[in-house]
């Protein structure tokens, strides 16, 4: 198994993740669905190594990475509000991590081409980027270091419909053409429908349901149906 979370528990400022377990294959597009406050970001932080779990383990390619610090995990992370470094230029942002990793010119060009951000590289500051541009720069930054796994925290939030369309297309082709394994966290099923094959539903700090997307949509659990899906027809 490429990536596996096993019985992870984490208590943080009164909120707790309870016995989280799921796994995914290499090159898979995995969706993590949950309402606001379900603990999605906390789980991502634990996977990225920004928090150490209280108990449980995280495995990557068969190795236990639970105690590895974030900088040694090779997990890319697209933060919800991009978290671009405001004091650096666009190019300095994207090349930030390459001080610690071997740059791969061909791979970088492929990423830039796919995201269509070549002309943004000349921009001096990141403050004046549009929402969609900033998201793509942040994406390029996290991809530049060739992560083994890419975490996306609400990658379409705060974007206008056109930018959403472009970003989701880029994400799909990153996964299909370059073969990057992705965990996409969202509260909106529509974002990942048709792209993600498997998904897990996080609810109040625990995984309520996991499996293939189609199956989860056709056979939703009753309490999720009421409290999460609402009355909307999915």
């Amino acid at each position, binding site marked *: 198994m490429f990536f596996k979370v096993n019985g992870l528990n984490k208590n943080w400022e009164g909120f707790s993740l309870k016995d989280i377990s799921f796994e995914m294959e290499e090159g898979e597009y995995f969706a993590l669905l949950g309402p606001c406050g379900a603990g999605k970001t906390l789980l991502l932080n634990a996977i990225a190594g920004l928090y150490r779990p209280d108990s449980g383990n995280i495995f990557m390619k068969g190795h236990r990475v639970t105690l590895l*610090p974030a*900088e040694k995990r090779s997990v890319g992370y697209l933060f919800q*509000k991009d978290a671009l*470094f*405001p*004091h650096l230029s666009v190019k300095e942002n994207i090349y*930030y991590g390459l001080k610690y990793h071997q740059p791969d010119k061909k791979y970088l060009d492929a990423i830039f081409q796919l995201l269509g951000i070549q002309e943004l590289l000349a921009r001096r500051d990141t403050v004046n980027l549009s929402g969609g541009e900033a998201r793509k720069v942040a994406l390029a930054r996290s991809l530049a270091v060739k992560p083994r796994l890419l975490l996306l925290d609400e990658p379409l939030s705060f974007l206008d419909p056109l930018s959403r369309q472009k970003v989701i297309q880029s994400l799909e082709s990153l996964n299909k053409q370059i073969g990057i394994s992705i965990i996409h966290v969202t509260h909106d099923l529509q974002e990942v429908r048709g792209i993600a094959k498997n998904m897990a539903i996080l609810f109040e700090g625990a995984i309520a349901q996991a499996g293939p997307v189609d199956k989860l949509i056709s056979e939703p659990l009753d309490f999720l149906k009421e409290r999460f899906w609402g009355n909307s027809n999915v």
Partner: protein
Amino acid sequence: MIYLFLFVILLGLHFIFFASFVDSGTNAVILAANFLFAFNGVKVYRRESLNKFILYLFGYLLLFVFVFLLSKANLLFAIFVILYSAIFNIRRLLPYLIILIFSLVFVTPYWLQVSVLLGAFYFFADNIYKTTYSRFFVVLFSIGFISIILIIFPILYIFLQVTPQSLLSAFKNNEFQQALFNSLITSGISSLIILIFGVPFAYVMARKNFSGKGVLDNLINLPILIPQTVVGVALLVVLGPKSPVGEFMFKNCRLAIANGYLGIIAAQIFVSSPFLIRSAINAFEGVDQKLEDASRTLGASEFNTFMRISLPLAASGIFSGFILALARALSEVGSLMVIAYHPMTAPIYIYDQFIQYGLSEIQPMAVLLVISCLWAFIGLHWLRHQLVRKAK
């Protein structure tokens, strides 16, 4: 033609009316002023509305009643009339003239200070109103300006008391130069020492939660709470010639801490550290944790993240704290009087001269000290501004 007519009327008025109040010389000056007033009045009447003209006359009436009749400042009245006639057409300046007249007539001993302060107040209040169109904020500003006045008035007052000659002679005083030099060197060194030790500490305080943090957080403020003389006594007990540290330093390095540069620096570090550390904590708290997280996931270690993200982004705030600490160190007197009266720093020297020679002797020095400190801080702020611009 009308001007000639007016002139004749004025001439008559002066012979009959003003002559009974003032001597003929003053009368002539007032006549000239009045003629200018009348001349301008005709122009106002022709070019602008009747209301403006009445307003113009009303202003003159006020001047006449308050300055001429009540204050009996005849020549001043003539000058005001000339200024009023000239400035009435430049509406922006009119309030300043009113302020000047008000201060001269009602607060004569402090007229210069009061008119400067009121002028500044009007300038800011007017600006605030014109940019925000909010009366509420003008009222808030007016309340706040009272505290500004309490700060600025004494400084402004002694600034306006000294002459350039006395400043120059104070500056040529070797002892004062030496004291100023001592002040700048010691406060510079102590602020740098706080910078080196305070910044790492501030980063921990800003980023991590640990038990006992609240106690540490309050300890930072301790030097602000303790009276300065007590600080001096405490330091003297710990570092003085009879203490183990003092004895050790004297035996091995031939260095006295008390009554030496080391003593000055120790006292300055003690009193000024809260300002830098507090600013640095605030600056680090202002850096989004997400940025540091992003840096970590990109492969940067905690140390590299600190150097490449946290420190550059907090630099401007830390620099502000550095300036504050420097200012605090520079102005320290109380603890220095106990632990290191000699070598004298500039504030101590001024105090020393005051005790020996009295108030008039030290005024130019005090002003000089304020000026040199102001220059130092303006320079540092400018440097900080450049840093911020460069960082962007």
